[in-house]
């Protein structure tokens, strides 16, 4: 009898663990031919990620773990799962990037530069060079995302510590400030030299303005141009119930992608983009009513997504592993919304937009879905995982970070 019980127990354990693996394998929904592996997990608040040409992965943490804010991962046996991990960098933040022999990482007010050796390992983990300091950090939209061009410049997002540049932020009845004084030191992308030490506003250049908060940005090497994803303003219904209902407020404004040149203006806080009317609309804080247009001098978006999905990473795919249609196209990691309540929340997926010659050649589509792990989301706290960072490996695999539990997904393709 005891034997039978034991055998039954062993069988049920085997079945359960097989079932568990199946759940893991099936958790992320991908197009046919794509496969996902758990490269690493339980890292903490894994924000952005960058890989060296040797395949060493560096992940920036939003909160320190044991005093460190950068995780290095190596998959030396190439089985798709990292087995070597070290941590360094005593500062929390979001931005991380690899360029040439350097690793760049940001806190919410500074940018640091590390040196990489021939194996893609950091040679000076305890004494990086500080290249940028003293950037605005007022908690709201404080993350400093970074990307680099091929001419020795680094581009740093300085998000506006505000929703819509009202006199009193997010407060019903408070007027918009004209002109918006925040734009002098935030609400844009600043350009710095990627090798000079201790630069700040005086040494940098405001490359583009009128951008509320950019978390996802990438240098498109095909067109040699900066592309960014904006987090659109919140609370149209809560602040202006006379012009917007809860449904419109959930859908608007669009989360937009801009292709930027030096001197461009995205229009924040004076206007927002409405993908339903396909127009730039005057913000209600500045006399708008949801219909009046504005922003004649502001750039038009190249892609407009539904509102509030939180685009936290942008990546132009240049690898050869994925099928031809993905080449030079844009992947966007949507962190997932909170400001669609009481409507269902949206996002929590990685989208793809096919591109030709730097312009979209088709509609956007969901590429990788079900990070949240639940059927539908009323409240963002219900999500098990939230996509936050994207990187391409030297073999063309796509890496996705999650800042809820610190899972790193590796997505590969084979015919």
């Amino acid at each position, binding site marked *: 009898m005891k034997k039978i019980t034991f055998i039954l127990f062993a069988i049920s354990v085997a079945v359960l663990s097989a079932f568990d693996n199946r759940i893991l394998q099936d958790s992320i929904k991908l197009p046919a031919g794509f496969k996902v592996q758990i490269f690493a997990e339980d890292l903490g*608040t894994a924000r952005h990620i960058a890989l060296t040409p040797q395949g060493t992965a560096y992940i920036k943490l*939003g909160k320190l773990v044991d005093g460190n804010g950068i995780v290095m991962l190596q998959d030396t046996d190439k089985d798709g799962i990292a087995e070597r991990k070290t941590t360094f960098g005593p500062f929390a933040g979001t931005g991380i990037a690899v360029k040439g022999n350097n690793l760049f990482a940001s806190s919410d007010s500074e940018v640091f530069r590390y040196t990489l050796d021939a194996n893609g390992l950091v040679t000076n983990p305890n004494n990086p060079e500080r290249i940028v300091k003293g950037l605005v950090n007022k*908690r*709201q*939209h*404080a993350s400093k995302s970074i990307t680099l061009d091929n001419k020795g410049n680094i581009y740093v997002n300085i998000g506006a510590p505000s929703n819509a540049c009202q006199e*009193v*932020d*997010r*407060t*019903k*009845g408070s007027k918009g400030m004209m002109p918006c004084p925040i734009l002098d030191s935030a609400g844009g992308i600043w350009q710095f030299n990627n090798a000079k030490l201790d630069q700040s506003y005086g040494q940098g250049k405001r490359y583009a303005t009128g951008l509320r908060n950019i978390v996802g940005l990438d240098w498109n090497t095909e067109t040699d141009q900066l592309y960014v994803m904006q987090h659109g303003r*919140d*609370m149209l*219904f*809560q602040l202006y*119930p006379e012009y917007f209902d809860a449904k419109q407020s959930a859908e608007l404004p669009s989360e937009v992608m801009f292709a930027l040149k030096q001197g461009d203006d995205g229009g924040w806080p004076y206007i927002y983009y409405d993908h339903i009317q396909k127009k730039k609309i005057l913000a209600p804080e500045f006399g708008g009513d949801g219909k009046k247009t504005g922003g004649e001098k502001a750039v038009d978006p190249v892609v407009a997504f539904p509102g509030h999905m939180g685009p936290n990473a942008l990546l132009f795919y240049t690898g050869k592993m994925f099928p031809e249609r993905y080449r030079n196209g844009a992947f966007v990691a949507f962190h997932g919304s*909170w*400001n669609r*309540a*009481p409507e269902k929340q949206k996002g929590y997926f990685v989208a793809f937009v096919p591109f030709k010659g730097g312009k979209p050649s088709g509609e956007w589509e969901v590429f990788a879905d079900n990070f949240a792990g639940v059927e539908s989301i*009323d*409240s*963002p*706290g*219900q999500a098990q995982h*939230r996509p936050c960072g994207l990187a391409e490996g030297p073999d063309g695999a796509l890496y996705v970070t999650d800042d*809820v539990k610190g899972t790193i997904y590796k997505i590969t393709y084979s015919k």
Partner: protein
Amino acid sequence: MKSDLQFEHNIYVKSRIFILVVLVSLCTSVSVVAQSIADRGKEVYDQNCLACHQMDGGGVPMLTPPLVNAEWVQGDKVRLINVVLKGLQGVEINGEIYDNPMPPLTHLSDEDIAAVLTYVRANFNNKAGPIKKEEVVAARKAMN
């Protein structure tokens, strides 16, 4: 004699019924008042708080603190009323700092602030007593 007794008994029964009716109607009207405060509290919550604190009171990770079984909600009443009147940002709560600012909601009436705080203190796994309009009036006075 018998009829007198019957009469007294009838009076006794009637007065008992009368008292019962009065008690029941009193209780009902008190609970109707309590119910309408709770309804008003939910209305105020849905219009002014739900966008950030969410329909389940769960807040938004990293941005907005949860109201579920929360010390700030169930604890000191004056501190809680002041969060609504003055707003709040950058305070550490259970080891987390939340980035989005809470705006001051001074445009809400004293009755509405009392109603919404009473609603929050009795929902989302909170079990704290009501907040009275007079307590909001006093906190607003102390502010000016």
